[in-house]
């Protein structure tokens, strides 16, 4: 099914030998159903074993293979070669430090994720023996979309504010906090707000919306962040009001 070949330009960087990244060009066969990841695997197996990148699932669920493809952050395993012209440029995810080739540093995201307490902080503790918490399908649906995040960090790469302000907690972390805040079983919002509603939290977002456009899982972080802003604003005015009334 190879009809033609296609040029792949990959940004390479090896900290041990290069002072800065450079482009390297590979010629790969074009298959109709190939994704960019297949092309990279083809290169790794047949042309250049020194090319490095992350991947695992090949089904857009593990979140490993985020990279810039022709300037936009994408999952390589979900970007079909057929959707591109004859030259595809592949770079590491923007805004993150390049560890090597297409591999970028994850530390920042992982520590931010931990900071927003992305776990259920139950309203009331309930022993496991007493069975599940009740949650209606409507209550489930309320937060479900925001629980679909695969931590691929594509939204961070898409968000210019994160690029400009690296301290910004960023779309995915705040969205995950919001996911738990919306959960009918949860009572931990107050604790999460310490980070989420801080200056480096949701308030660095200017609603560019690029995060949601880029998100491969349709999580809609931009929406989540605006909801968080509205809720935090209501909180703030309530707090002020109640302290005046005292």
């Amino acid at each position, binding site marked *: 099914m190879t009809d033609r070949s296609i040029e792949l330009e990959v940004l390479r960087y090896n900290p041990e030998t290069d002072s800065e990244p450079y482009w390297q060009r590979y010629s790969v066969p074009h298959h109709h159903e190939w994704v960019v990841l297949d092309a990279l695997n083809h290169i790794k197996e047949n042309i250049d074993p020194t090319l490095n990148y992350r991947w695992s699932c090949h089904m857009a669920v593990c979140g490993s293979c985020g990279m810039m493809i022709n300037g936009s952050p994408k999952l390589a395993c979900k970007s079909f070669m057929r959707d591109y012209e004859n030259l595809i440029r592949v770079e590491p995810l923007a805004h993150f430090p390049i560890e090597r080739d297409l591999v970028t540093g994850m530390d920042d995201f992982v520590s931010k994720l931990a900071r927003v307490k992305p776990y259920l902080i139950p309203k009331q503790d309930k022993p496991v023996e007493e069975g599940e918490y009740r949650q209606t399908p409507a209550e489930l649906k309320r937060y479900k979309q925001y629980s679909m995040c695969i931590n691929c960090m594509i939204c961070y790469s898409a968000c*210019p504010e994160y690029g*400009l302000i690296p301290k910004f907690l960023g779309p995915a972390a705040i969205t995950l906090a919001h996911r738990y805040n919306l959960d009918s079983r949860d009572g931990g919002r107050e604790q999460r*707000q*310490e*980070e989420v*509603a*801080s*200056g*480096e*939290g949701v*308030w660095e977002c*200017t609603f560019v919306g690029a995060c949601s456009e880029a998100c491969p899982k349709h999580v809609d972080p931009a929406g989540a962040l605006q909801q968080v*802003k*509205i809720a*935090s*604003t209501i*909180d*703030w*005015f309530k707090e002020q009001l109640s302290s005046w009334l005292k």
Partner: protein
Amino acid sequence: MAKSNKPIVWGPFAAGGTVTAFVTPVLILLTLLAALGHVPDGLTYEGMHGFASHWLAKLAIFAVITLSLWSSAHRLRSTFFDFGLRRDKQIATIVYFMAIIGALASLMFLYCI
């Protein structure tokens, strides 16, 4: 980390953004008509004066002007940042200050009508 006081500036911004979204285009359209020489009845001196004399109208005008100045100021602040001007504190002080001056001025003018 402490929670931010951003809501105090963001709340009016969001309100202003909503108000301007609803009313600014039509207002521009009306003054555009005037600019083109077809002053609508309501925009003549008599029309406007009569309208703006009512306290409810004053309130509405005040609200529209204040909120839209505020939301413009707030957006301008982040736009400056986006254009690479990073002295956020100073810029914020200036733009919000200007919006407040505008609001106070409108209050005064309306009082005088």
